[in-house]
C-alpha cells in the first residue's frame, strides 16, 4: 500500500482568515470566495485513515516579490501583477476568473477537492498574468518560488497563479519551486501552489513547472487549464524534491481543435512520495491530448500516477493518448501507475499504456564490460531512460538545469549504504 498525502486545518477557523483578509483590505468578493472555500473544506469527506495528513498553520505575510520578474517585459496591454494587489486594482479582470474559470469551486470534485478548498480559503500570494488579444511574449517568463523561512516554526506557502490569455495570445512561463538555501534541521513545511489558466481561441501557453523543494517540504499542486477553440497548451513537469509531492493537474479541452500536451518526469530517492493525478477532459470535436511520463524511483521512494483521458459525448474525432514508464532502482521502491480512459463517444482515437520495470541487466553488464563501475553505469542508464523527456524541456536553459538536478538525484539514490553493497 502506497501512502497518500493530504492537508488538514486543525487549528484554523474562519475568524482568523477574515481578520487577515480585512487587514489586507481585500474586497468583499474575495472574502466571499474564502468563505465559500472554507465551507467546502468543512464539507469535504475526511481523508482515508491510511493517508498522511499534514496539518496547516496560517500562512505568513507574502514574501518578497521574485526578483526575476522585476525585469520581465510583456507586450503592451498585458498585466503581470501580484495577485493580492490585482484583486484590489484589477477586479474587473480578475473577478470573473479567480477560482471561477478553470478551477471551479462549485465543481470541486472528490479528487483534489479538499486541496482546492484549502488553497482557495488560505492563498496568501500569487501572480496574475494577463495578455490581451494577439499579444505574444517574446521571452519566457521565469519565476522562482522559495520556501519561506520563519522564526522557529516554518510558515506554509499558499500561492495562486492566474493566467488569462486572450484570443491569439502566446506565452511561455516557467516556475521553479526551491529551498531557501538553508539546509538541515527544518520542521516540516507545506508549499501549496495552484495554477488556473484560461486560454481563449487560438491562445498558446507553454508552462514548465519544476518542483525541487528541500527534503522537509510537502508540495501540493493543483492545476486546471481551460482551452477554447484551437487553443494549445504544453505542460512540462519535473518533480524531484520534497518529502512528498501531490499534484492534481487537469486540462479541459472545451473548444474544437484544442490541444494539450504533457511531458513529465519524476525522480525519487530516500522515502520521497509522489502522487500525480493528471487528467485530460475532451469536450470539443477534434481535440487532442497527449500525456507522456517517465519516472525513476530508488531506495524506498514511491509513486502513484493516475492518468485519465475522459472523452465526453460529442467530442467527435478526439484523440487521447497516454504513456507512463517507471524505472525502479531498488526492491523497496514502489510505483502504482493507473492509466484509464472514460469514453462516452464512439468516434475517437485513444490509447494508454504503463510499464514499471527494473534496470536492464544486459545493458548494465554491457556498460560494465566497457570499464564503467556499476554506479556509473546505472547513472548512464537512468539518464538514458529520461533522455526522451529531457529533450522536451521548454528551453535549453531548463534542460541544462534539469540535467544537473537529475545528476544530483541519481547521486543521492542509494546513499552510502547501498554503494557499499555493490563494492
Amino acid at each position, binding site marked *: 500500500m502506497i501512502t497518500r498525502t493530504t492537508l488538514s486545518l486543525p487549528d484554523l477557523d474562519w475568524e482568523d482568515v477574515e481578520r487577515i483578509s480585512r487587514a489586507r483590505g481585500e474586497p468583499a468578493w474575495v472574502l466571499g470566495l474564502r468563505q465559500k472555500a472554507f465551507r467546502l473544506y468543512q464539507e469535504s469527506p475526511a481523508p482515508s485513515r491510511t493517508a498522511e495528513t499534514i496539518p496547516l498553520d496560517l500562512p505568513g505575510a507574502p514574501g518578497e516579490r521574485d526578483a526575476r520578474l522585476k525585469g520581465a517585459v510583456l507586450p503592451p496591454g498585458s498585466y503581470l501583477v501580484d495577485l493580492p494587489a490585482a484583486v484590489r486594482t484589477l477586479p474587473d479582470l480578475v473577478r470573473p476568473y479567480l477560482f471561477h474559470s478553470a478551477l471551479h469551486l462549485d465543481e470541486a470534485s472528490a479528487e483534489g477537492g479538499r486541496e482546492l478548498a484549502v488553497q482557495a480559503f488560505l492563498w496568501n500570494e500569487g501572480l496574475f498574468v494577463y495578455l490581451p488579444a494577439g499579444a505574444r511574449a517574446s521571452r519566457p517568463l521565469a519565476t522562482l518560488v522559495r520556501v519561506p523561512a520563519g522564526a522557529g516554526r516554518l510558515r506554509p506557502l499558499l500561492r495562486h497563479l492566474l493566467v488569462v490569455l486572450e484570443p491569439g495570445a502566446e506565452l511561455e512561463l516557467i516556475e521553479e519551486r526551491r529551498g531557501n538555501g538553508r539546509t538541515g534541521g527544518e520542521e516540516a513545511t507545506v508549499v501549496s501552489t495552484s495554477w488556473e489558466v484560461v486560454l481563449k481561441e487560438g491562445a498558446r501557453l507553454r508552462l514548465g513547472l519544476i518542483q525541487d523543494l528541500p527534503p522537509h517540504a510537502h508540495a501540493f499542486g493543483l492545476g486546471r487549464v481551460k482551452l477554447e477553440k484551437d487553443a494549445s497548451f504544453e505542460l512540462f513537469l519535473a518533480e524531484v524534491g520534497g518529502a512528498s509531492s501531490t499534484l492534481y493537474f487537469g486540462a479541459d479541452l472545451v473548444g474544437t481543435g484544442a490541444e494539450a500536451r504533457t511531458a513529465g518526469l519524476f525522480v525519487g530517492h530516500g522515502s520521497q512520495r509522489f502522487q500525480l493525478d493528471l487528467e485530460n477532459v475532451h469536450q470539443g470535436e477534434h481535440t487532442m491530448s497527449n500525456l507522456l511520463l517517465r519516472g525513476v524511483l530508488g531506495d524506498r521512494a514511491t509513486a502513484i500516477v493516475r492518468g485519465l483521458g475522459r472523452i465526453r459525448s460529442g467530442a467527435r474525432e478526439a484523440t487521447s493518448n497516454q504513456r507512463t514508464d517507471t524505472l525502479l532502482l531498488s526492491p523497496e521502491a514502489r510505483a502504482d501507475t493507473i492509466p484509464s480512459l472514460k469514453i462516452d463517444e464512439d468516434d475517437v482515437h485513444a490509447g494508454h499504456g504503463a510499464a514499471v520495470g527494473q534496470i536492464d541487466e544486459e545493458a548494465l*553488464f554491457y556498460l*560494465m564490460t*566497457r*570499464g564503467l563501475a556499476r554506479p556509473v553505469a546505472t547513472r548512464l542508464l537512468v539518464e538514458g531512460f529520461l533522455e526522451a523527456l529531457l529533450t522536451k524541456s521548454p528551453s535549453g536553459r531548463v534542460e541544462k538545469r534539469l540535467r544537473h538536478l537529475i545528476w544530483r538525484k541519481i547521486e543521492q539514490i542509494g546513499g552510502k549504504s547501498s554503494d557499499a553493497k555493490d563494492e
Partner: protein
Amino acid sequence: MSSRVAELEIRDLHVRVEGKPIIRGLDLKLYPGEVHALMGPNGSGKTTLALALMGHPRYEIQRGEVLFAGENLLALRPDERARRGLFLSFQYPAEVPGVSVANFLRSAVNARRQFLGEGDISLRDFQALLKEKLALLGMEQGVLRRSVNEGFSGGEKKRHEILQMILLRPRLAILDETDSGLDIDALRVVADGVNSLRSPRFTVLLITHYQRILRYLKPDYVHVMMDGRIVRSGDAHLAAQLEEKGYDWLREELARYSAGSEGENA
C-alpha cells in the same frame, strides 16, 4: 615451453548457466601476442566461455581457475576486468536507449585511461581520435549521436564493437563471432581493425564458425570446442580441415577414440 607468464590461462573451468553445466573442464593457455581461433558447433559453449570470462552474472563458475596476466580474473567485477584490459566483442551487443554513442565511448575511454594512469582525454583530442578511427572502420560521424546499438544493423553493431576495441586498447580481446553476418568488405574492415592493434602486447581469442576471417586474421592456434571442452588443438590447417569436412568427422574420430579407450579399460 618458455617461462613467460601466459596472458590468459584457464584451468579446469566448469561453468553452469541456470543450473545447466555448459563448460565442463576446459583448459586453455594464450601467450602474449598470440591469435587463437576457437571453433566448434553451435551449442558447444563458445559464447558461454566468452561471457563467463567477462564476468556475466548469469554464468556461474563451479570450478576452475582463470589467470589474466597472472592475476585471478574470477575475483574481479566485469568493470575491473575491462579496466585491466580484457575486452569482449559481443555477438549480440545490448541496446542502451537514450545513451549516445559519443557519451558512452568517452566514458569508457576515460575509465580505461584512468586505470592506465593517463587521466581523462580532452574533448578536442577525443574528437580527433574518433574521427580517425571512424574513418578507419568506414563509419559515419552521425553514429555518434545515435543511442548505443539501438536500431543498428548487424554490420553496424559489429563495427561499433571493433571501434570500442580500438579506442580501449585492450591487452586481450575476445571476439565472439564478430565475423558472422558480415559481407566481404565489412569483414575486411573488421579484420583490418583488429590487425591495426597487432603487437606482442595484444592477444586475441577469436570465436568463429568460418574459415574466411582466418584468411585476414592469421591464427597461431586453432582449437575445437565440443560439449564444453577443447577436444582438438592445432594450427590453421585444422580450420581448413573443419571447413572441408565439417565437425562430424571430428566427432566420429573422437567417438572411435573414446570407444577404443573404453575397450582398453575393459
